[in-house]
């Protein structure tokens, strides 16, 4: 009796956490166990995972408002990323360094993110039910348009423009001397030779998560969630559905902009041109792995999903490369992230209507 009861309880707990997550977590554990045998340092791997978590967490967190409001997964996250790029390049152009550089970049990005997000929301409100497809095209189009603009816009900082012509931005711009690792190194704790805990970065992420958590508990956040759950119910309760959706899209875009700034400061470079294209998919994959459906997501899912996804991305290439003695990291990364999206989308939980 007792054992069956126990089994049942374990089963329920497992189902609650979700089999996909359990399997991925187990896989990750196996990789960690294998690591010492192929001479991959566990300490540096852990350090890597924590860093990558900090770099990507905000981009994943940006998915939450749009999921909650029923706009689906934000495949158009590149729009927020572009706003972030505009902000950071402008901060470099204005010669802002250190804290002024980082927060200047955030301040400069936000207006762009708000305007772009607002326009993007206008569009998404006209294509209800097809948001994700349209979002993907919006992302592609915006990135391509900006690829032209990066060449034309009148940037002149020597650190950013092509050396031989003196105009047009380079594909990669170093943040050395500006705000490279400004947050990551803030209060950073060196635990061992190859394990550094990026305290500042993690604190910033935690604060952002707290803001989102509080927002979802506010009146507006509650209304937004109800729009995602059942728009007809929300409307009958006097909620302006389009306004809620617009708010969620703007929020998502702003978080995307701040997210890329965190990514840059940790990575050390601003990546322009087609780079924003590669930001949306991993974020989508991470939140889906975290257990979010296409219209329900929570902060816990963001954290769990980002850790699992980044963990796999960090560990698989290093362990498997060492096992196979070839460099397949990029291939493995692409297969993994796209495979996970595919898997997650087929498993998306049905919404009761």
């Amino acid at each position, binding site marked *: 009796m007792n054992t069956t009861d126990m089994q049942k309880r374990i089963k329920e707990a497992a189902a609650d956490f979700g089999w996909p997550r359990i399997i991925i977590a187990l896989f990750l554990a196996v990789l960690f166990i294998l690591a010492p045998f192929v001479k991959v340092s566990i300490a540096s791997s852990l350090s890597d995972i924590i860093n990558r978590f900090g770099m990507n967490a905000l981009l994943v967190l940006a998915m939450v408002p749009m999921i909650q409001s029923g706009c689906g997964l934000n495949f158009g996250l590149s729009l927020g990323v572009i706003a972030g790029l505009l902000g950071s390049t402008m901060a470099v152009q204005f010669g802002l360094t250190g804290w002024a550089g980082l927060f200047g970049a955030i301040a400069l990005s936000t207006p762009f993110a708000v305007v772009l997000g607002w326009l993007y929301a206008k569009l998404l409100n006209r294509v209800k039910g097809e948001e994700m497809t349209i979002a993907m095209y919006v992302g592609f189009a915006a990135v391509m348009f900006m690829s032209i603009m990066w060449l034309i816009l009148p940037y002149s900082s020597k650190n950013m423009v092509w050396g031989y012509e003196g105009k047009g931005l380079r594909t990669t711009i170093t943040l050395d001397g500006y705000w490279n690792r400004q947050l990551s190194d803030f209060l950073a704790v060196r635990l061992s030779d190859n394990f550094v805990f990026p305290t500042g970065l993690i604190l910033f992420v935690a604060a952002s998560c707290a803001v989102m958590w*509080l927002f979802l508990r*506010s*009146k507006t956040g*509650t209304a937004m969630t109800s729009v995602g759950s*059942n728009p007809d*119910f929300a*409307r009958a309760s*006097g*909620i302006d559905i389009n306004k809620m959706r617009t708010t969620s899209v703007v929020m998502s875009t702003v978080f995307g902009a701040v997210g890329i700034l965190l990514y840059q400061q940790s990575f050390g470079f601003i990546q322009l041109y087609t780079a924003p294209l590669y930001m949306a998919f991993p974020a989508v994959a991470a939140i889906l792995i975290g257990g979010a459906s296409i219209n329900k997501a929570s902060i816990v899912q963001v954290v769990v999903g980002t850790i699992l996804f980044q963990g796999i991305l960090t560990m698989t290439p290093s362990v498997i490369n060492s096992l196979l003695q070839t460099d397949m990291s990029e291939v493995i990364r692409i297969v993994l992230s796209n495979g996970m999206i595919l898997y997650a989308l087929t498993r998306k939980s049905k919404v009761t209507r």
Partner: protein
Amino acid sequence: MSNDTPLLRLEGITKDFSGTVVLENVTFDLRAGEILGLVGENGAGKTTLMSILFGMPVIRETGGYGGKILVDGREVRFSGPFDALDAGIGMVHQEFSLIPGFSATENIMLNREIAKGGIIADIFGPRLSTLDRATMHTRAKTAISRLGIEIDPEMKIAEMPIGHKQFTEIAREIDREKVRILVLDEPTAVLTESEAEILLDAVKRLAATGIGVIFISHRLHEITGMCDRVVTLRDGKSVRDVPVGETTVEEIAVSMVGRDMAPPEKNQDNRVFGEPILSVKNLWVDMPGEVVRNVSFDVRQGEIFGIGGLAGQGKLGIPNGIMSLYPAGGEVLFKGKTLPRGNPRTALAEGIAFVSEDRRGVGLLLDETLEWNIAFTAMQSQNRFLKSFLGGLVRLRDEKAMKELANTYIDMLEIKCTGSKQAAKELSGGNQQKICLAKAFCLEPELLFVSEPTRGIDVGAKAIVLDVLRKYNRELGVTIVMVSSELEELRSVCDRIAIVSQGAVADVLDPSASQAEFALSMAGLRESGKNRIKEN
């Protein structure tokens, strides 16, 4: 086999959809050459009965049916529409099942095309044989002419007037050589009167050739005008089966609504009402399937005002229009002031609450907790259940207050659930309805619209819901406008009942009015005596 054997006999047909009985012991015969009228209110089970007869897969998927269907005295059990076709049963559906881009001939001969061989067919098999269009044309023409009308067999369906589409559909059914039983499901609903007459003539002509016809219609005059016998279905039972000569339109209407002629228990207390709290003048509402054309009525402070009528006549459109959930126009005065339209928020702010008939679609957040479901509307429209932090800078959900509120209503309305954190979708229909009521009650409205409060819930829950509404009205003096298709329910709760027919108020009746009066108002046959009881 003797001549007495009926062409078709339904014997004790019973059907339930996951526990809800929709047909119970339905029995009747159909003889060759006979036209049988089948009448009943919406939801009486007509369509389900015809689906069983036609062997629709949906019946089998939902657990089959009980009872027997006998054709020529032999029991049959169809495993699909094709079996029914083979047995000689043809059906013309309420909605057209025609291919718009095909001509009449092609539609009539669909899947029965006459083919002629050819070299290609010889080599690759019969699937590639060519059509014998000349023969098909003649066949289609014959079928159409049997109906006694003229349609160009080569005309595309898309270009036809609606009446001709209906004829094409019937022609398709009678083209089968074997067809002996023809079911017409509200064939005249979409036709003009002159078209309907032609169709009725055609049906009579068909019956004369020995085809048995089951004719379903809401137009009772057509039934008495052409049928030989009329069977009434009510709440899934065949309650009446008489030759048409022995009955009248009025009697048929009464049999559809209910045989209980005694007025229900009356509200003995002499109730006094105040000034009109809600005045509706020339309201129109564009709600698909429930169009309101021109409705005017007054609701007095403190009363329970009922709105009844058959489905599709517009009764549901009235509250939905007033709450601005669908485009509407006309004048709505609430407490003497014009109620602005365009946003449900304004109606909510004025103190009007609405319990929607679409419980799962509009009434509930199925994936959310009961706490959310009950408190949400009050939170959004009245800023309740919010807690201020940092001197009002941040206002968050007051989860504790929400839980208390939910528990209060769970106790008060005897909602069966595992707790206030359960998701609304896990509750039974009756308990979901109670949640919807709790949501509305918690808004503390002055005027409450409840739309189909007992739809799809069991008898016990029905009684509780009605009781709660009555109590709510008596104890707190809240004016209630209740829309329902169940007349008995309206008569037992309401102080006055407006009957809506064809998008307009046909009559405002006292609940003690006779069954016949209600029935006639519903059938739209009672034009005179509008607002009979103006002020009592």
